[in-house]
């Protein structure tokens, strides 16, 4: 009994071990691909990861996770040639793309070792070697010739055989291709390449076996060094881009953009100093800026009730005319009640707001390049918040550190994230902008959450009752809105999500707990701010955010239209 069972166990452990190794390799692959091609949006344009079992001639056999290719035809005449393409074409957003093929066996003796490595477009005949047909390109091992959509080759490089590693690099910026042999670049083989080519390999000799490396392993050739050269070239091109015909025009425009940004986000003291030192007019009264600042502060510190009240006082008709906005604010107020931060529950003997407030005593660092947040669902993506105002947040000094921001009362306690996705009308913060970063866990607020036991509404019974009552009011307001203005799925979802918080004993670690995060105040704050500005006939988006958004959109458009230089021009690189 012990015999077979232990044998079985052994087998299983091998399988498990194999799986582990596989996962490990996959992790490596994903990591390497992300590092090599950070600009590629794989949801839109997946990267090649293996050969395609569907896109090959029948004489081709695949094994080892579709990375190993062997020839199983007769190999007598060129009619027996067979090719296989990778699963996906090379995305333009790679900028520079590279893969390697190792010759495991050159095939049986007595045959000419026809073997081609290269690229081909979808639909090119697979009963051929790469390079022989239109939109097909190859480097052949038997004679070292390159084949550019033609049956006759050109002298190109050395021959290659068993043990050699041949690399193929596609430059999507100037649409050229070069090969490498054992880590040595052989020089340009093809120019004027069409877009959307697939890595392709073709064999014609019995016994030929080759392995592909699409990033599963480190490459023999130092492709990252080549990429560095092109990144430098593109960035130099951007840096040298001619601006502003007339002297001072460019600078004046930049200053205007910065000033309008400061005003928009009500950094009023900074805006004042900046406008003064750059000799500009501010198109909004200081009092008005201060009012907005006051409201924003309240929203960002979670005191929604007070924020709504103040808004109603200062801008009497605003919320009346925007019932959806009011609804949104109230839903947020509900969430803050759950959180224990809203003024209405706080005064009911909830815990000190400080311990619950995920904006800790000292305001968050303005110059932190990434808006950190305390997220329970860790796959949440969040827009990178540009940090260009960091130098101005406390007037003219550019010193850093939270103590400075702290001492400067006129600074809002956080920097609202500009809504970059506004260009195409949708406000989605997540996918339609290239500039995304994966969220990191905020050390401050996270620490607060983990150390103290969080309690609903700050732990006060009265507060909980108030919260429930408020929830009922919200429910009826929602019904009222629906009757008045028809169905609104966004509102419906918002309310449902907010109420879902109550379904969990510890809402903070629940799947809907992300709503409690202080970072979620920012879109609310920004929407309210924009609405106020709109009533004053001021743009609801600052031009600076608009420009950043536009640049990001341009880059994704370039990726779609095949301009490889987008790979080396990330907006992030310029937001420091």
């Amino acid at each position, binding site marked *: 009994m012990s015999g077979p069972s232990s044998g079985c166990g052994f087998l299983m452990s091998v399988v498990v071990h194999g799986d582990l190794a596989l996962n490990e390799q996959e992790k490596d692959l994903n990591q390497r691909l992300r590092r090599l091609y950070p600009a590629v949006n794989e949801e839109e344009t997946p990267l090649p990861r293996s050969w395609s079992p569907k896109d090959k001639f029948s004489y081709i056999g695949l094994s080892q996770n579709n990375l190993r290719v062997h020839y199983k035809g007769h190999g007598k005449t060129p009619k027996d040639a067979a090719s296989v393409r990778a699963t996906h074409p090379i995305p333009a957003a790679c900028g520079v793309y590279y893969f390697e093929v190792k010759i495991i066996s050159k095939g049986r003796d007595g045959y000419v070792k026809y073997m081609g490595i290269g690229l081909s477009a979808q639909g090119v005949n697979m009963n051929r070697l790469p390079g022989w047909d239109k939109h097909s390109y190859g480097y052949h091992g038997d004679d070292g010739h390159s084949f550019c959509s033609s049956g006759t080759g050109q002298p190109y490089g050395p021959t290659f055989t068993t043990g050699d590693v041949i690399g193929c690099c596609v430059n999507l910026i100037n649409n050229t291709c070069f090969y490498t042999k054992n880590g040595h670049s*052989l*020089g*340009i083989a093809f120019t004027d390449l069409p877009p959307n080519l697939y890595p392709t390999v073709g064999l014609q000799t019995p016994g030929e076996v080759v392995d592909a490396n699409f990033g599963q392993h480190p490459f023999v050739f*130092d492709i990252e060094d080549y990429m560095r050269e092109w990144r430098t070239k593109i960035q130099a091109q951007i840096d040298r881009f001619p601006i502003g015909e007339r002297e001072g025009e460019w600078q004046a425009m930049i200053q205007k953009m910065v000033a309008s940004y400061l005003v928009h986000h009500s950094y009023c003291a900074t805006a004042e100093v900046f406008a003064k030192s750059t000799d500009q007019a501010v198109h909004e009264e200081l009092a008005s800026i201060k009012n907005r600042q006051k409201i924003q502060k309240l929203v960002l510190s979670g005191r929604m009730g007070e924020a709504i009240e103040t808004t109603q006082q200062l801008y009497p008709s605003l919320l009346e005319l925007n019932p959806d906005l009011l609804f949104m604010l109230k839903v947020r107020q509900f969430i803050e009640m759950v959180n224990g931060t809203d003024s209405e529950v706080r005064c009911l003997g909830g815990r000190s707001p400080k311990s619950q407030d995920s904006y800790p005593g000292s305001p968050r660092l303005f110059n932190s390049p990434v808006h950190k947040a305390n997220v329970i669902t860790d796959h949440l993506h969040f827009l990178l918040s540009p940090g260009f105002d960091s130098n101005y947040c406390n007037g003219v000094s550019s010193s850093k550190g939270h103590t400075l921001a702290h001492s400067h009362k006129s600074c809002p306690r956080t920097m609202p994230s500009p809504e970059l996705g506004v260009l195409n009308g949708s406000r989605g913060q997540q996918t339609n902008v290239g500039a995304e970063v994966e969220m990191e866990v905020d050390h401050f607020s996270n620490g607060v959450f983990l150390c103290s036991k969080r309690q609903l509404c700050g732990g006060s019974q009265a507060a909980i009752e108030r919260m429930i009552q408020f929830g009922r009011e919200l429910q009826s307001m929602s019904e009222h809105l629906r009757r008045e203005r028809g169905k609104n799925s966004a509102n419906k979802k918002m309310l449902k999500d907010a109420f879902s918080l109550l379904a969990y004993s510890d809402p903070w670690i629940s799947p809907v707990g992300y709503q409690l995060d202080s970072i979620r105040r920012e879109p609310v704050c920004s929407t309210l701010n924009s609405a106020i500005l709109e009533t004053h006939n001021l743009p609801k988006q600052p031009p600076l955010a608009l420009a950043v958004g536009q640049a990001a959109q341009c880059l994704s458009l370039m990726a779609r239209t095949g301009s490889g230089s987008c790979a080396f021009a990330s907006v992030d690189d310029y937001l420091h």
Partner: protein
Amino acid sequence: MRNDGRPIPTLEVSAAQQQIHLHTFFILQEVTATSRHYVDRLFDPDPQNVLQGVIDMKNAVIGNNKQKANLIVLGAVPRLLYLLQQSSSSLELRTECAVVLGSLAMGTENNIKSLVDCHIIPALLQGLLCSDLIFIEACLRCLRTVFISPVTPVQLLYTDPTVIPHLMSLLSRSRHTKEYITQIFAHCCKTPEHQTVLFNHSAIQNIAPLLISPSDKVRMQALKCFSVLAYENTQVSMTLVNVLVDGEQLSQVFVRMMQRDKPIEMQLTAAKCLTYMCRAGAIRTDDNCIILKTLPCLVRMCSKERLLEERVEGAETLAYLMEPDVELQRIASFTDHLVSMLADYFKYPSSVSAITDIKRLDHDLKHAHELRQAAFKLYASLGSNDEDIRKKITETENMMDRIVSGLSESSIKVRLAAVRCLHSLSRSVQQLRTSFHDHAVWKPLMKLLQNAPDEVLVMASSTLCNLLLEFSPSKEPILDSGVIELLCSLTQSDSPALRVNGIWALMNMAFQADQKVKVEIVRALGTEQLFRLLSDPDTNVLMKTLGLLRNLLSTRPHIDQIMSSHGKQIMQAVTLILEGEHSIEVKEQTLCILANIADGNTAKELIMTNDDMLQKIKYYMGHSNVKLQLAATFCISNLIWNEEDGSQERQDKLKDMGFVDILHKLTQASDPNLCDRAKTAMQQYLA
């Protein structure tokens, strides 16, 4: 006696003034008044006014070469130096003086000359002993500017032995001292002696940390220091490989500096450092940092995208790197189309530049020679070992035509490089038979040999040796062009390399040659010269001379003819060599000559009648070296050969002398060749 640097009255025209063009002189007269004012203020009794005067002077000269020249002519320099050296001057004044002098040095080369003539260098070096950093920096800045000028003799840095150690001690004082001092070192390290001085004062340990300085300039100058220190210097190179910078090996620091996003100058200089370390044997040629980093980096430096200067340096460094290593040559030959990329080096000035841009044309013209010689050098290095690479080179567009025209260019550098390239390609049997003959390369080569400096002659004559090999179709036309006299004259040269090549070429020429040619060689060379060469101190010369003799003494009629006229001297020479202290190879070659003589009809009597010589042969048959035994046995075998007249007497005589016993013993020899040879000889007795 006053020693305050007061200018000479203007009427006494100074030497500097005499050099000034008349044209400049007129302009001078106009501005002299204002310039004089600046100089006069340097003599003001109130030190405060002097200081203000120097400051005003500083502002007046910035970027104004005319003003600089004026002040120099008017004698400002000695006064400024005087003020700078006076301990009574305030530190501020001394510093400002150094700044103004630094500014004057920034002008033309003539300015530098004047400054050096005023002994600015010792004065500034003296200033470095001051403790004030600002003053030191000002002095260093001026010294830097003076030393990097081509008109300043670098030796001035080394005259006072305390200077280098003091500079080393100042090195780490500030960002500026680092930059200026390393820049001075990088420019003033030109000879192995300079390298040694700097090395002995711990240049490596002091400069290595600067390679990771946050300042680009400091990093760059430090890197340059290493490239000049390591050049052809084994001691430095061996030390460098063991240096760690912040825990990292120096070679890895250099590799990082070759990354493609680094400035080109940095990539190129780092590649030079690694190249020099490799050539000095400190890094193996198959090390990844050479094969995967340095070599590709240097190939990139040859690309069309680089500046002409960079392409020249890149090609020269690459040629140097791979010269001794065939694997590197093979890799380079297929890297980035290098062979065809180099063809572009010959296209300057391009036809486009001539039309569009006169400035560009000038620039192209200036670099055209440099580019061509660099390309020839690189081709020479690429083709020095591998037949396939040579073929690839000769098949490059117009390659042979380019070499042919390069051989007769006015620039000596180009001629030398072209002949080096030709020499490298001449090692190919196939090319000798085809392209060399098709392009009649022997013609310009012969022309080049008529009148050229030694270094060109060495290469050209060495190439000629290959062209005179018996399978070379160029051999005939070269013989007809009267080359023998020329080669004979080379054998009289003071340079051993030229003597070797001359005699070597003659040796090749005599191989299986007509009687007529052989007689001509002996006549032209003269027996006296032949014997002088047989006692040449250079073994190579001796070996090739023996080779020539051997080639002359082949086929029976030739042997008899030459021996009948020069037999006595030749036998004497052979005796002398066999008795002398020579290597096995030399003796073997000599015994082979003796064997050839033994093959003659009449000539063999010269041996048979010479008992002393027979005893020598007997001795060598019993020698411990098989090669010598073999050659001696061969000689005896020729003497006792059956089919010839008088063989019976010779056999008898040699038998009497005990040769048969020796032969009998040798038939038991362990060496199969020797054994066979002895058996064949014994058979002559049996038949």
